[in-house]
């Protein structure tokens, strides 16, 4: 029997929790991207669309948490934070088991396989696959589920005295696209609660009562815009897992019984993740390619955090005075995301010399020095 997680007691703890929330959202992205990029071009269109849509929303949630933290006057940072009596790293090394939210289980990087889809459902299920939250073994200074973690943040934002909000370094709505929902710029308690509410409504923090609601509701407007409103991550992945769509009358907790949704697990690059510590000699071309990917990922994360702290970045420019100009690191990061995809696909097409039935798998290892 687990005891109730302790409420967030002061501003310091709230800021630390938000730093970890940003990291939490970021940490799920490589898990989904590895599966997405393993899909061979022109195949598994439905699966690719579903996974991509979830990735897009995780990106949105990350930015929402960033906007709340910045509004509280704290800059998002990649550095370890003290949360209660522990020092936690916001950005994980894979495979990763969150010490903060043990219920999620291990986050591992896998190509699109049935096991990968099972793990996605575990992430997105309200109790992470457990029947009752009480079944999850959890220390009092941690949270059994993502839902309870965000609830604690929500309560703190609602109840804590002495919170001062001001609109600083907000990522704007126009910078988010290609996914359901929109960036909320945070300027006061109300918008902060709205931002966290959005993460809870859309995401892994799926409230348990949602399982007893209609699995999806797609309107005409949804078909023209992003078709994923009112359609939880859990429901999207359940469809992949079962190979069927939900009927419009079904509840999320039911087994989908609608039209077929075929997932061809053979049209996937057979990438195999090798832990950083177990990697081949560092000078093989394969190791170099893996390291280059990690460097690119690290650069991307650094650019993101630089943007979140409201800074510009000097970049080389031959025709600028002194050969340098200031660039918005958020846009550099967007370019980095596009480039990362090409790099990931290239790795997943490269045979693993030690294990020729498999190909290389990106490690998404964040090294603070690129």
């Amino acid at each position, binding site marked *: 029997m687990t005891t109730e997680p302790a409420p967030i007691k002061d501003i310091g703890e709230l800021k630390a929790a938000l730093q970890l929330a940003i990291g939490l959202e970021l940490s799920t992205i490589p898990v989904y991207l590895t599966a997405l990029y393993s899909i061979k071009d*022109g195949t598994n269109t439905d699966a690719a*669309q579903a996974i991509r849509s979830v990735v897009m929303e995780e990106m949105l949630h990350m930015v929402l948490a960033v906007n709340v933290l910045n509004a509280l006057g704290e800059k998002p940072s990649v550095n370890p934070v003290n949360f209660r009596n522990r020092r936690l790293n916001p950005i994980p090394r894979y495979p990763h088991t969150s010490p903060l939210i043990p219920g999620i289980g291990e986050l591992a990087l896998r190509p699109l396989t049935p096991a990968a889809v099972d793990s996605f459902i575990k992430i997105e299920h309200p109790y992470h696959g457990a029947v009752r939250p009480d079944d999850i073994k959890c220390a009092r200074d941690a949270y059994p589920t993502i839902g309870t973690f965000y609830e604690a943040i929500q309560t703190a934002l609602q109840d804590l005295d002495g919170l001062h909000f001001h609109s600083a370094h907000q990522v704007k709505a126009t910078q988010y696209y*290609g*996914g359901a929902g929109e960036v909320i710029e945070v300027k006061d308690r109300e918008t902060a609660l709205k931002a966290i509410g959005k993460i809870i409504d859309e995401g892994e923090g799926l409230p348990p009562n949602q399982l007893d609601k209609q699995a999806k509701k797609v309107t*005409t407007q949804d078909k*023209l*815009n*992003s078709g994923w409103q009112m359609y939880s991550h859990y429901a999207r992945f359940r469809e992949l897992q079962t190979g069927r769509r939900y009927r419009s009358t079904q509840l999320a907790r039911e087994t989908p019984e609608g039209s077929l949704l075929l997932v061809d697990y053979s049209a996937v690059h057979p990438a195999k993740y090798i832990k950083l510590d177990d990697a081949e000699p560092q000078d093989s071309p394969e190791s170099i390619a893996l390291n280059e990917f990690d460097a690119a990922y690290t650069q991307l994360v650094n650019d993101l955090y630089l943007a979140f702290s409201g800074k510009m970045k000097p970049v080389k420019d031959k025709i600028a005075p002194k050969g340098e100009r200031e660039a918005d690191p958020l846009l550099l990061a967007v370019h980095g995301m596009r480039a990362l995809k090409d790099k990931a696909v290239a790795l997943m097409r490269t045979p693993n010399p030690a294990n020729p039935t498999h190909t290389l798998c990106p490690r998404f290892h964040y090294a603070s020095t690129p």
Partner: protein
Amino acid sequence: MSNLPVPDYDLVIVGGGISGAVIAKTVIEQAAKKKKFPRILILEAGRATALSADKYDTYVEAYHKALVKVPNSPYPASRSAPQPDVLDIRPLDNTDADPGGQGYFVQKGPMPFGSDYTRSLGGTTLHWLGTCLRMLPNDFKMRTTYNKGVDWPIDYEALKPYYERAEWDILGVAANVEHQHYPGLTGSPEEFFKSNNTTKFHEGSYHFPMAEIPSSWLDQYMAHTVDGMTISLPGKAKPEHTFKIKISNTPVARNSTPAAGYNVVGAVGNADQGQRCQGNSSCIPICPVQAKYNALKTLYELIVKYPDQLKAGEQPGTRARVTIQSQSVATNVVHTKATSTDKGKVTGLTYKKYYDDGAPPQGTPPTEYTVTARTYVLAANAIENATLLLASKAANTSDQVGRNLMDHPLLLTWGLLPENVGAYRGPGSTSGIPAFRDGAFRKDRTAFRVEIGNWGWNFPEDTPYTTVLDLVGGNEDGKAQLHGRELRKRLGEILPRQFRIAWELEQDPEGRNRVTVEDRYKDALGKHRPVIDYDLSDYMKASLPWAAEASRQLFEKLGMKNKVPHLPCEPEKPGRKKARSYETGDYTHYACDDASKVKYGGETYAVRGAGHVVGTHRMGADPTTSVVDSYQRSHDLPNLFIVGCGSMPTLGTSNPTLTMTALALRTGDEIAAKELSA
């Protein structure tokens, strides 16, 4: 009149391209304000392959696999609805050859018509570049201002609100007003774009729905090197014309960062994709993510919002409905002749359905149908509209149907810059030089626009593929010259320095440039193929030496003065022994067997088509010299609208799609206001 049969539809539109889609959308939206709910049929000759995300991917795949990547490579042609292809263009100097022997067009010359279009749902917007320049005020009054061509029945100010709607409501144009530097304007760019819609734009201060697509590194390099230079060109009346050069970012229908209140439209059936341009660098022939507008986006919106199928309990006439019927080729505009008291009118439209590339099921012949409507719209492309009208002997009292065919013949010049300018990155073009778009010189020679290309020598030399071939070589002994790392390194030294400019010349309307039909030239369904007579006027040719001279001065400023010799009339032999040296300089040259050579003033030039097919049913106030009025309504048959680029009396120097869209919006308003009242 109550004993007249009820027509099948309120509106039948021939052609599922941008004009047809825009008119359907506009009619429905405007009619809804008056609680009217039309039922509309869109007939498309081509296939409807791409109305879902995974099917669109089959086009992308076809593009990847195509050995020669021309505009129609991704869009398979059908024998039943054949389409022109630039690969079919041949020199026309052999007078014994059958002019209909190659491809879809029957090319009677003396010049081959150098452009194509796409006969698939979505039309030529599937492979357009997306350039969305407005026409300049003088472009609408060429006769009055320069005593050339003809005047339009409307002017820039009249079309302005429709340009704004085209940019916001249909195409989604990315541009910054302050970076539009056009010649011949009395005021600033802000004044040129000043809006009368003060509710939407504070004090009429116009802005586009999306921020400009960032200028490429090449554009910035160009601006840094040539902005402010003056190009001097020799004149007739005046000894010298001077043009101040300013690189100007080009408005495009390509998704970028939206202004507040604008909803970016992503890919058809997969709205998450394509909400920003990713720089895939294949706009022509296909944007793989649909960040570039195509008419499928508007058509998809129509069938999602206004499905023809009524739900249980829905009554007909309570909401608008749209059907898109593909593989349906219009063959006859059935109409009555005018009498002394009444004008004629269209009474039906005949079309043939085909199956599986002309082979009907169980060997039955393609079936012919006739459909009726209150109002008819031909939106099938300028050449297709003209062919259909001529075959139907309809709407041609003026004898102008098919005449005044125009394009933007373009002169390409290309060279190798002294440094890496990042060629082959980003959209096909992000900037241009508008300086030559207007001026007093238009009394003597046509205006032209300069498009700066981002894709190296792709257009003139089919690079980067041919550069690879040239370096690999392959001697007679079969040995490659360069391969592996060395080849990659060399390519890295050459490709990013490749530079080219297109000098897009305005063609003037001429009655002799025309589309006709002949019974001996028909396609597999028995529909007439377009027979084309085409040439360039001396007025137009007079701009060729100007463009060449302007190019010379520009190349000199860019460090490419050195004219790299190209052996005259050497056939491009495979297995040539030595690769080119790739020194910095001007590489412009024309192959001896170029199909589109033009001789002028002792010089030979070669021009290409721009894919701008314009002018075959021009609009005007006078029914004796024009086919349609300013609303694109037929002078002869008032319940027929003949729409698209064919209605443009003159072409100006802007790519015509934006103007065509503005005209379609205006036509949609007119149909909603006047045609649905019955």
